[in-house]
């Protein structure tokens, strides 16, 4: 396939018009633990399975669901370390917004800024000022060692516009969902959610549905709802 020649360079389009590295990043996401989110009438639920590699791992130290602001939380599917970087940056951006405007950041704004960070890493340069002019002449595979993030995020929040749920992909694109799932077994989970979802769901119903969706074959659960 003509694509394979272009699959190693992040900064080169393949003949079919794709950036193959990003496709691979999505594959990495698809092999991560399932996580899902459901938007209810009065809140949002995000849930994921906390699958530990062995029983000896200290369960309390693993935190897959993180708080970004008092009213926005996030869960990921894919590479944990990548998500930590994004969570850190998002928290800082939310805090900077608050300092500047003295209001808590709306969910859409935070999602947009997080998506912008993820997009930066899909174009060579990631904002790092590496020897200014050198960067312009050195552009073979010299993408300063950046790669796309290997995570998709589900951002859940509650602000003036009510409950909101967004999914952010490694490419930097984001979508608003009523209910969504990512990671392994995503097609089954989505089918299940489609059947079960109603627009006027209460928060408790949403929690119950989330648990049922994850329950198909899984043992451990970690829940967070807003």
């Amino acid at each position, binding site marked *: 396939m003509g694509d394979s020649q272009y699959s190693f360079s992040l900064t080169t389009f393949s003949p079919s018009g794709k950036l193959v590295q990003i496709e691979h990043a999505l594959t990495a996401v698809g092999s991560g633990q399932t996580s899902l989110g459901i938007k209810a009438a009065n809140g949002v639920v995000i849930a994921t399975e906390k699958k530990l590699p062995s029983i000896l791992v200290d369960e309390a130290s693993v935190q897959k669901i993180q708080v970004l602001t008092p009213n926005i939380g996030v869960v990921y599917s894919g590479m944990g370390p990548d998500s930590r970087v994004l969570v850190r940056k998002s928290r800082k951006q939310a805090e900077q917004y608050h*300092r500047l405007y003295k209001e808590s950041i709306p969910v859409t704004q935070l999602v947009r800024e997080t998506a912008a960070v993820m997009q930066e890493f899909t174009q060579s340069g990631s904002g790092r*000022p590496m020897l200014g002019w050198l960067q312009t002449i050195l552009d073979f595979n010299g993408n300063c060692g950046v790669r796309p993030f290997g995570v998709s995020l589900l951002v859940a929040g509650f602000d003036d516009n009510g409950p909101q749920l967004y999914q952010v992909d490694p490419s930097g694109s984001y979508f608003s969902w009523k209910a969504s799932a990512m990671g392994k077994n995503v097609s089954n989970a989505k089918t299940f959610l489609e059947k079960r979802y109603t627009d006027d769901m209460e928060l408790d119903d949403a929690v119950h549905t989330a648990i049922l969706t994850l329950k198909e074959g899984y043992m451990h659960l970690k829940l967070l709802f807003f």
Partner: protein
Amino acid sequence: MQRKVALKITTTLCTKNGCLDAGTIERVQSLAFLIPQAFVANTQRSLHWFLRLRSSSIFQVCVMSKAVVDVPPKGGFSFDLCRRNEMLSKKGVQTPPFRKTGTTIVGLVFQDGVILGADTRATEGPIVCDKNCEKIHYMAPNIYCCGAGTAADTEAVTDMVSSQLQLHRYHTGRESRVVTALTLLKSHLFSYQGYVQAALVLGGVDCTGPHLHTIYPHGSTDTLPFATMGSGSLAAMAVFESKYHEGLTREEGINLVSEAICSGIFNDLGSGSNVDVCVITKGHKEYLRNHQLPNPRTYVSAKGYSFPKPIEVLLTKVTPLKEKVEVIEGGDAMEE
């Protein structure tokens, strides 16, 4: 054409065969200005000078123009205008006065935690510019900070450190400690060498107990059981020195703090108006804004005001203004 460029010639010069040594580079740099035969090719970010030297080899010099390249801004103050300011002050031009909180701020440790107190007057030279300002700033749910000195400095610095503490709380998942706030504040103030004029009284209760600190504009700190800062500090300290003892109850503590602030309000010109108090205990805080108002303002005149009878409306006439813009319906669409 010889183009004037503010220069920082990079030291990477390349010939067709390799790089030059330092000696040759210097020669080329000095010659770059002199040789009029250089012609310039404009590329995206730099000017490439193709120079023909005596040795008739062509050098390609990458010249960085300050105007063209984005140089990351350096931190800290820029002292560019200091000379101009000196010159102006020699000629007798005074710097404009900035808003200060000539102030009385106090703090003390009592048996359950910490109590902070402050007056509420902000001055601009001899003028009171704010009769009821807030000098007790929020740092964390369990830490508050009183600020004396330049109002903008105290507010900006406490705001900034409060943001940093919030991020720190997210990352660690723990309650902030008073010493963390202390260290962030003092390192910031020290790095600005006293130019950020903020004198602070920092108090709070964390997992290690109640703490009270003072921070001076140059970055030094003290840890004390009772502290006062600002222009009214001596008046307030006199009260503390005579009446403070360990193991005060909450009521005694609040009364002592109010007394000290009142002493500052009445005996110091830079302090005045009302008393603000903030009580911080383990897991709980109480911000008593305007706890005491010893300087009430009387607006009512003793004789009372009499207003004349309202005038009757005899005639109402509405004259609409002419519209300057005429809207032509069905005109041609705008042509490019």
